[in-house]
Each structure stands twice: as structure tokens, then as C-alpha cells.
């Protein structure tokens, strides 16, 4: 039997902050085309997990394999360009225009020339409906617009996996929709995504797999339909009853 190779494989990941264990032995694999929603209550370690995968936090123990190779031994810049990240607070470079936000990484990290980087940036900016705002500064945009630019910026690096850390949590309610619809298009386009979210409708309807985290461990991992209609674990059931 030929096994499909995973893009990312997390093996026994642990993370402590001092004496506080935030992640206790997390293992799972991400395959091409997966749209995985990570749900769970605040403090369950969801965001820390994403930040560890992207090495914004150094894991205390465990390994992260990228296409079978230990990610820690890989060139960081190369790994980061393959595994992109979208933040809760957007984090657009405040000193750059929308367009420059989307070209800076391409030029500095991927060494693309100006024209190529610009074409690519404009392509993705138009995908998220923000190409008209290319000359604007981040401070002049609404939250939803900023997040769409942040998504375009991440996409312009041609990542294989995109990590979303609560991408809609900092948005006003009326702007959540515009960002979710962009994410929905990406999912339908076949992009591999790992989404930490409190948007249960997204988790249920868009993702191909749901991971429920509780107190630093994966409590349940499976098909969204199953998890939302017939959760196996009592704590999943309890969480869903509180949130739905």
C-alpha cells in the first residue's frame, strides 16, 4: 500500500511556559488539500499549537516534519515561505502600502524581481477584492480589509500550507463574513489550511476535518459532520453544547 505523504507531521509536540504545560503531547498529520479547523475553548492551546508549527514559539519537545524532513533542520526562511500564517491582529506592516506588504516577502525572501512580485501581489489582491486599495496604508483600512490583505500577503509567497490564527476574532461582526468568504474560496480552491477558529459554521461546513483541543491535548479528531452531530467525547459534547 502506498501511503500518501503528509505535508506536515506533528510528533509528540510539547510546549511549556515555565511550569505551565500548554501543549501536552500533540501528534497529527496534515495532508495536501486538508482544511482542518482547530476548535476548543480559550486556553486549550490552539493558538500556541499554530505558533509552534510556525516556530514563533520554540517547541519544548517533539518534532515537526515538513514533507518527511525535520523542520528544525531546514532553512527557516524556506520553511516559513512554505508554511504561511495569518494572524488574529492582521499584523500588516504599518510602514508599507498594501502593495508593498504583499511584495516585501517575495523580494527579500524568495528573491523575485520587482515586476514578478508585483504581478503576483496584484493577482492575489484582486482575488481577495483589495487590488483597488494597493496604494493605501494599513491604517486607512477597515479590519476586514486588513485581514484580506494579510491573506493576499501570505498567498503571494506560494505557501503549501496556510495557518490561520483566529482570523476573524478581532473583527466587527459585519466584517467577519467578507473574510470567511475569502477563506471559503481558498478551501474550495484546494489550499491546505489549518484554521484555529471560533466560527463553528466554518468548522462544520467548510473544513474537511475538525480537531477539538482541550487542556493541551487533542481530545477529538475527525470528520466535521460526525463531531458536530455525534461527538464521541463527553468534553466535546459539553463544549459544543456551550457554544452552539
Amino acid at each position, binding site marked *: 500500500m502506498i501511503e500518501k505523504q503528509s505535508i506536515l507531521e506533528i510528533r509528540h509536540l510539547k510546549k511549556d511556559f515555565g511550569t505551565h504545560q500548554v501543549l501536552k503531547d500533540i501528534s497529527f498529520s496534515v495532508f495536501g488539500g486538508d482544511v482542518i479547523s482547530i476548535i476548543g475553548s480559550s486556553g486549550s492551546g490552539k493558538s500556541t499549537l499554530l505558533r509552534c508549527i*510556525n*516556530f*514563533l514559539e*520554540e517547541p519544548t519537545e517533539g518534532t515537526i516534519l515538513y514533507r518527511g524532513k525535520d523542520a528544525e533542520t531546514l532553512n*527557516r*526562511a*524556506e*520553511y*516559513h*515561505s512554505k508554511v*504561511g*500564517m495569518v*494572524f488574529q*491582529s*492582521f*499584523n*500588516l*506592516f*504599518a*510602514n*508599507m502600502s498594501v502593495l508593498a506588504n504583499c511584495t*516585501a*516577502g517575495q523580494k*527579500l*525572501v*524568495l528573491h523575485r524581481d520587482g515586476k514578478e512580485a508585483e504581478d503576483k501581489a496584484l493577482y492575489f489582491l*484582486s*482575488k*481577495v*477584492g*483589495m*487590488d*483597488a*486599495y*494597493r*496604494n*493605501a*496604508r494599513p491604517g*486607512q483600512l477597515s479590519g476586514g480589509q486588513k485581514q*484580506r490583505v*494579510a491573506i493576499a*500577503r*501570505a498567498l503571494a*509567497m506560494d505557501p503549501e500550507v496556510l495557518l490561520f490564527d483566529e482570523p476573524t476574532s478581532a473583527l466587527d461582526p459585519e466584517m467577519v463574513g*467578507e473574510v470567511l*468568504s*475569502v477563506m*471559503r*474560496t481558498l478551501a*474550495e480552491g484546494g489550499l491546505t489550511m489549518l484554521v484555529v477558529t471560533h466560527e463553528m459554521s466554518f468548522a462544520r461546513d467548510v473544513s474537511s476535518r475538525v480537531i477539538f483541543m482541550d487542556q493541551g491535548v487533542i481530545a477529538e479528531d475527525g470528520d466535521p459532520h460526525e463531531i458536530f452531530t455525534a461527538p464521541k467525547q463527553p468534553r466535546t459534547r459539553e463544549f459544543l453544547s456551550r457554544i452552539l
Partner: protein
Amino acid sequence: MPTTFWGWVSLLLEKYGPLFWNGTLYTMLIAISGTVIGFIIGLLVAIVRTIPVSPKASIVKRWGMKLISFLLNVYIEVFRGTPMIVQAMVIYYGAMMYLGLRMQALGAAIFIISINTGAYMAEIVRGGIISVDKGQKEAAHAIGMTHWQSMLHVVLPQAVRNIMPSIGNEFVVNIKDSSVLNVISVSELFFIGKSAAGTYARYFEAFFIIAAIYFVLTFTVTRLLRLLEKKMDGGRNYTICGSQSDSEATITIHPEGDVPND
């Protein structure tokens, strides 16, 4: 001999006009170079002090960084903790007596004011770096930028904008405090003032002129810096390019068989 205040002022201006002008040039030259070089020193010191050292790094690297960081702290504390007029005496005469180095007064003045300003600037730049949201650096790292790239392209441009008022302050302070360098006989404004006053023993009139020149210099510089800050902030408006595409438009999904006939 003049009998009125204004009479003396105009006499001094007439006699020493070119000298006052030269003094002004020296003062500005010392203040500008001191601020620029000091700023560069401050930037470098601050960048070095913010290099992240992973606890997993080799012992040589960790101790090396600790040592560098310690030396930089010593530099900052010593130069912030002693008056510039004393630093000038120690450096100028120390170099002469123990290194046999007879520094040119202007060169020595620029050197002293630069390292003095550098110590203050290091702390100002450090404050500026801290003031930039942590997320900016994280986003830079998340798309693969190195420490230097993220500092150079993302963090420092924002930090420098934030500390422009403090840099301006340092500049103004340097224009005024370069006067203490008269102790090493550099012919800046204060030194010229002393010479001009001495001839006729008209201290009040001579230093009145000097005060007026200092004020015009600092006032002009403050205004110019405000303009520069405004320019750095960029326009308040931006132009929308082409048609405004709507994210909804690109993702409308038509159910099968329901293709819109255009």
C-alpha cells in the same frame, strides 16, 4: 564709542559679523554631525542589543553576546553618567598626554559629541523598537524574513518614525550643548562670543547676539523637523486604482445549470 545698547550691538556685528557667521557654521557642523553619527551609533547599539539569542545556541555565542551586551551597557552608562564638558577634557587632554595625539579641535569636538549622543540615542532607539508592536516582527518572521531583514525593513522604519521627536530633541540639545566644547578651543558660537566680548568688555551685548543666533537656529530646526515628520507620515488620502472589485464578486458560486445568461 557707542553709548546705547543697540549701538554696541551694531558695532559688534559690524566688527565680528564674519566671525559670528563662522561660529554659527561650526556650531551647526558639530551639532549635525554629532546627531547623525550619534544616531548611527545608537541604531547599531540598539540592533545588536536586540539580537535574539536562542537558549539552544552554542555556549560561545551565548557568552559572546553577553559580553558584548555588557560592554555596550558600560558605554551607555559612562557617557550618560558624566557631563560632556568633562568628557571633552578627559578625551582631549588624555589623548594628548598619554597617546601623544594632538587632535584637531573640530575633529575632537565632533568625536566627543558623537559618542556622547550615541549613548543617549542607543536608549532612544531601544525605546522606539519596544514601541513597535510585537506582531510586526512576528509577521516578518512568518513570511521568512531574517532578524536583520525584519529589523531593517519593518521594525526600524516604524521605530525611527516614533522616535523622531526625541531625535529632534537631541539635535536641539546638541546645538546648544556644543557650547561646552569651547573648553577645547573649538571656535563654535560660544567661543566666538567670548572673543568678541573680550575686546571691548561688552559681555552683555556680545552674548545677547549669541543667544539670538542660538534661538534662531533651534527654532528653525524644530520647525523643519515637524515638517519632516509630517512628510514621513505620508498623505492622509490614497487613490483607488481601477475599478473596485468586490471580494463577493469573485466567489459567487452558481448552482449547476444556473449559469447566468449575459
